[in-house]
């Protein structure tokens, strides 16, 4: 990956690619690296348990701030999805791999597959031009855990103060709330799974909590890639 590809300057903001590529000599480590060393995470696949926790590391997390109308136009043009129209909304693209989430009245969280966020950020910056906005790549600060299985809801009921029943957290809703004495962004992208966006430094703690809380049901923590 060349210098020109990994660094860019659009307008007066300097951006850089947080995925340096294989030839840069840096081995990326997922936030659950320590958990893996400690044997708390297994490779994907294996015996079916009642709850599956799958880590999705290295995704592109971007926080967009600014006016809803300006950002909506830009995001729709570059990503093909519109900003959620209501508070606590979560919108996914047709594939289901890119999402835009309402975080606060002037703040949205965009999650895209690994490596796409640098291009996306530059394209958004170019399109937004001189508008009043901010884009921050927060991918290094948080990670995403997927929770699925028939007992996943019961596990969450023990861990969060939020009402995770269908009427409290329907598909297409995402809330920031308390999870096991720490903060979490709890997302419901589809009927069969929940997503937890947790702080990178709390990832091991959250996994330990989930393993403990899920012991009675049987729980596996898997990582999609090392």
């Amino acid at each position: 990956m060349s210098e020109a590809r990994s660094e860019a300057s659009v307008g007066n903001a300097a951006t850089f690619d947080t995925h340096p590529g294989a030839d840069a000599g840096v081995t990326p480590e997922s936030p659950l690296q320590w958990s893996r060393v400690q044997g708390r995470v297994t490779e994907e696949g294996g015996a079916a348990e009642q709850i599956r926790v799958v880590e999705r590391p290295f995704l592109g997390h971007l926080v967009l701030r600014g006016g809803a109308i300006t950002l909506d136009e830009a995001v729709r043009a570059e990503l093909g999805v519109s900003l959620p129209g209501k508070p606590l909304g979560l919108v996914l693209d047709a594939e289901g791999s890119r999402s835009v989430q309402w975080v606060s009245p002037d703040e949205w969280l965009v999650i895209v597959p690994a490596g796409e966020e640098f291009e996306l950020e530059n394209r958004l910056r170019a399109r937004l031009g001189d508008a009043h906005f901010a884009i921050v790549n927060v991918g290094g600060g948080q990670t995403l855990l997927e929770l699925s299985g028939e007992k996943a809801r019961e596990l969450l009921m023990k861990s969060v103060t939020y009402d995770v029943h269908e009427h409290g957290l329907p598909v297409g809703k995402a809330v920031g709330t308390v999870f096991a004495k720490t903060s979490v962004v709890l997302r419901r992208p589809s009927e069969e799974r929940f997503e937890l966006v947790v702080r990178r430094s709390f990832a091991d703690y959250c996994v330990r909590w989930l393993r403990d809380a899920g012991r009675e049901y049987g729980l596996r923590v898997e990582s999609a890639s090392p």
Partner: protein
Amino acid sequence: MFHIFCPYCQEYREEEEFHPSGQAHLVRPADPASVSDEEWGDYLFFRDNPRGIHHEMWVHRLGCRKFFNITRDTATYEILETYRMGEQPSITAANAEVRREQGVQTADGGWQTVGAQPENSRLNEETPS
């Protein structure tokens, strides 16, 4: 435990997600250089401590992370209304009797706390001490 209506998230959340940030509607003197020490000291350090209706600033620190205002009764702990920054309260100490007649409502028209629901209204009535 309070059950607080966040005016930005537009729903009720547990108190655990919030943090109080002191008295609301404090106005910084427009020209700090020209005010007297007493006025500046009042602005910086002195806060109201009423018995009854109080307007407070809270932050939804684990949700949308926005500041907003709560009108609360310090004697009964009743939350009378929550409203966004920049808005004015509809219930103040001057018109406190309004809530006695109309009940205790939030901006969305719902009931704010369990203690404020009609079937529990007896619990809210002041008892002679």
